[in-house]
């Protein structure tokens, strides 16, 4: 096979486990978005044009909570700032490509593609076919995400009374399925607890500003704990 196409195929192949793991998110997104009152075209368009799973989920959560467009866009900014870090990491390997290549690369940058392509770069730092590998992963991820969104929209229409099933509870438990596995130490746990408790107290603040405030306080507490933990010597291991 042509080495470029071969590398592209490898990019897709290496991304498969991550893409399979993302499928329930895409399907549940498509199904939930319907229940908060987004039109079909908007649900699909968000997957096609925004293509950022966690911010799409958070957007429908915020719509369900009654937030306005401005709050959702500001939250999207915060949630997706991590993509800047990914782009910064890939930067040295992207410099040699023209803007015509860089623009679609940036548009298709996701957690999954970043994970596999940065791993690839560690093993092949000077690969001439890096862009092919990247697009192999990214285009597979992109087409699958759109397909899963369609499936979710279709299911929520076909399965009778799906909206009576309490899809708001589906959203809450889906989010728990994302958050709980990431609570692996004291800063992450305290971040979640502080943000959760404050979001109850500030629930009636206008335009869901309480939500952003609570999230920022959670992050601040996590950083303070991290700093405090770094300042005390690591516990001595029993000899």
């Amino acid at each position: 096979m042509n080495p470029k196409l071969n590398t592209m195929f490898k990019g897709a192949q290496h991304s498969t486990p991550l893409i399979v793991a993302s499928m329930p998110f895409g399907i549940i997104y498509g199904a939930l978005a319907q229940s908060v009152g987004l039109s079909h075209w908007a649900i699909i368009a968000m997957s096609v044009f925004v293509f950022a799973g966690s911010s799409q989920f958070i957007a429908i959560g915020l719509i369900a909570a009654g937030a306005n467009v401005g709050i959702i866009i500001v939250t999207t900014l915060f949630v997706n700032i991590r993509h800047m870090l990914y782009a910064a990491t890939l930067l040295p390997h992207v410099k040699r490509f023209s803007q015509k290549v860089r623009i679609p690369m940036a548009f298709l940058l996701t957690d999954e593609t970043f994970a596999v392509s940065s791993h690839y770069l560690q093993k092949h730092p000077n690969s001439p076919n890096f862009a092919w590998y990247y697009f192999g992963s990214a285009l597979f991820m992109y087409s699958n995400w759109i397909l899963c969104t369609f499936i979710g929209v279709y299911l929520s229409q076909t399965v009778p009374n799906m909206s009576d099933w309490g899809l708001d509870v589906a959203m809450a438990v889906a989010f728990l399925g994302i958050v709980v596995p990431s609570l692996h130490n004291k800063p992450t746990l305290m971040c979640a607890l502080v943000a959760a408790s404050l979001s109850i107290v500030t629930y009636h603040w206008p335009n869901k500003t309480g939500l952003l405030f609570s999230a920022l306080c959670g992050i601040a507490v996590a950083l303070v704990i991290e700093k405090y933990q770094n300042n005390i010597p690591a516990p001595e291991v029993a000899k």
Partner: protein
Amino acid sequence: MNEWLLIFGMMAVTFSLRYVFFAFANKISLPEGVKRGLNYVPIAVLSAIIAPAVLMPKGELWLDINNPYIPAALVAILVSWWRRNMLLTVVAGLATFALARYLIN
């Protein structure tokens, strides 16, 4: 809800974040504290969405055994912590919710 504006705004923000470093290939770097803070963004935002959805499903605090969202969330936390599987967490949480609602009625 203006859907056009929502999607355009989310796209503009997301694409800008992904592209800004690629566009200006020079030495921009975020302060270390900001970088570390960003790691906590998904946890903090999602937690702040989950808590009211579970404890205030009708807009007011509802803390008693008739609130079926609470057992659903507790089971979801346990299953997620135990198996780390999103799909299983959703199925278990929904099943608990249905059962709790059936028992309450």
